[in-house]
């Protein structure tokens, strides 16, 4: 695995992108290594009192540029490290993939869909948000596939999310006869989708949304519990082993906890 690029990247464009800002930066080396699911870690603007980095999703690479999704317009130069993290894996053979995205977290799924389509897979989207104004990527998704289902909590677009999103997601997986699930959504929605996919025998790949204070694996601030193939549960870092995980590996009910059966949990949490 090539080392991430540490660069001061020139911002060459910004535009509104749903409820966020799409920021295009020039960074040829990082762009050449991009895969959907990667993220970038940005420093705060000069003069800020913030001394940590902020992880932002990389939406796509195009030539020598990267598109990032930011909450607001950045300064003309961005101090970034990219690409970081483990991207979405590609299936061994073409399949039928359901892509579940929530709010702006859905950003990386569009480049992933392009990659899956190029490799011969079918794709369908379920895009979820609190309200119509928070839905992300609807038009772009519709350009890629006719199968785009919208769900909103307030019912202002698409179907109402309701109290049982698991049932809706199970219906979607069933209607598509999907054998692959890719998610970029909240833990609650992801857990429901993974359960539905697993019950149907579909593989799931999930991007975990969590704070990543450094993005490089140094701070140990983004750990989550997983259960490995050997049956042992461990705490692992979202920024290095993830943010994309095999959905059945993550202990969705225990995020932000140290479950008692995790390796080393009995040693206590003393010391810094």
């Amino acid at each position, binding site marked *: 695995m090539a*080392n*991430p690029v*540490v660069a001061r990247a020139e911002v060459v464009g910004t535009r509104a992108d749903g409820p966020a800002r799409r920021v295009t930066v020039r960074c040829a080396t990082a762009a050449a290594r991009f895969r959907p699911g990667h993220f970038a870690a940005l*420093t705060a603007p000069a003069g800020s*009192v*913030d*001394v*940590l*980095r902020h992880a932002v999703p990389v939406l796509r690479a195009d030539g020598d540029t990267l598109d990032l999704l930011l909450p607001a317009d950045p300064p003309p130069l961005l101090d970034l*490290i990219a690409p970081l993290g483990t991207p979405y894996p590609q299936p061994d053979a073409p399949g039928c993939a359901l892509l579940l995205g929530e709010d702006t977290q859905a950003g990386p799924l569009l480049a992933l869909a392009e990659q899956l389509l190029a490799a011969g897979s079918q794709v369908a989207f379920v895009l979820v948000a609190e309200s119509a104004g928070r839905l992300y990527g609807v038009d772009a998704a519709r350009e890629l596939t006719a199968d785009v289902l919208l769900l909103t909590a307030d019912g202002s677009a698409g179907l109402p999310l309701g109290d049982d999103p698991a049932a809706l997601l199970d219906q979607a997986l069933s209607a598509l006869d999907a054998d692959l699930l890719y998610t970029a959504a909240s833990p609650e929605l992801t857990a429901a989708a993974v359960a539905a996919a697993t019950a149907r025998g579909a593989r799931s790949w999930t991007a975990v949304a*969590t*704070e990543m*204070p*450094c993005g*490089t*694996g*140094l*701070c*140990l*601030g*983004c*750990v*989550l519990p997983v259960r490995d193939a050997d049956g042992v549960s*461990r*705490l692992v870092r979202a920024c*290095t082993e993830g943010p994309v995980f095999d959905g059945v590996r993550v202990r969705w009910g225990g995020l*932000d*906890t*140290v479950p008692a059966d*995790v*390796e*080393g*949990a009995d*040693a*206590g*949490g*003393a*010391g*810094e």
Partner: protein
Amino acid sequence: MTERQDVDLTAPLGGGTVPNPLSTAAGCAGFGRELARFVPLDELGTLTTRTVLPRAGAGAPGPRVVPVPAGVLNAVGGHNPGLEGFLRRELPWLAERGVRTVVSIGGHRLEDFAELAARLAGRDGVRGLELNLSVPGAADRGVPLAANPALSYDVVAAVKAVAPDLPVYAKLAPDTGTVTEVAAACVAAGADGLSMVNTARAMAIDLDARRPALAAGTGGLSGPALRPVAVHCVFQVHAAMRAGRMPAVPILAMGGVRTGRDALEFTLAGASGVAVGSELLRDPTAPLRILDELRAELTTRGFTAYTDAVGLAHRTTTTEDGRP
């Protein structure tokens, strides 16, 4: 036109030397693997590891790391591979790469430190030990050892008894009110150097959740917010050494070092080595940048050797508080 003279950056490590004074502060560089993607580790003066405890630990739940103005609060807990995991997986990796490794060790009891030191002494790649005296000690109802001169003495003496040939640095806390006393006790017990300082106990509140921002409640403050506190501690202890109140040993300083100027500041206060900590989380390439900046600062000021700058801020003062 005068020819630019290269500065001799050789710095002490206990009674020996290393090629330059830059190290990493324990807990901010892991065991080197992540940092190696950004820095050639063998170019560091030393790499100080995350604290190794006798047993592997998962550490604390999240949130573990939160930003505060000009600093970082952390309560990662005892997340570590344990001694066996360190010996099996981490130390061979470091030794193969020629990294001058200082192993940070910690424990809840004196016996923990002694066991770790005995098992690490003589191992290929281990160039020194740093004793994390800020792990709450069971011997004193959870009060960090670093607050207590007598307990700190006992830990250092026990480690030196089993690792007499290895440079041993005691890492001191900044907020015990006893830093000079603990420093003197550690040196009297045989410490070859002092690491100054650990994080300061601190807290932030999550306004929306109406509870401490860290899951553990209290954590350790690092980063630039800590630097003036750390400079003061280094200054006080170096002053005590100059006054003959304790034997002089090298001080490895850490606490919010972001630039070569910061490194020079600690050096003038009395440090003869400087470790980069939370700045690595912002800029993992920082160590060699800071070293270049330090070299430039020294050159600009006419120094030909790094060690010539150690403690120079004391020449115009007569008290530990820095008064003229």
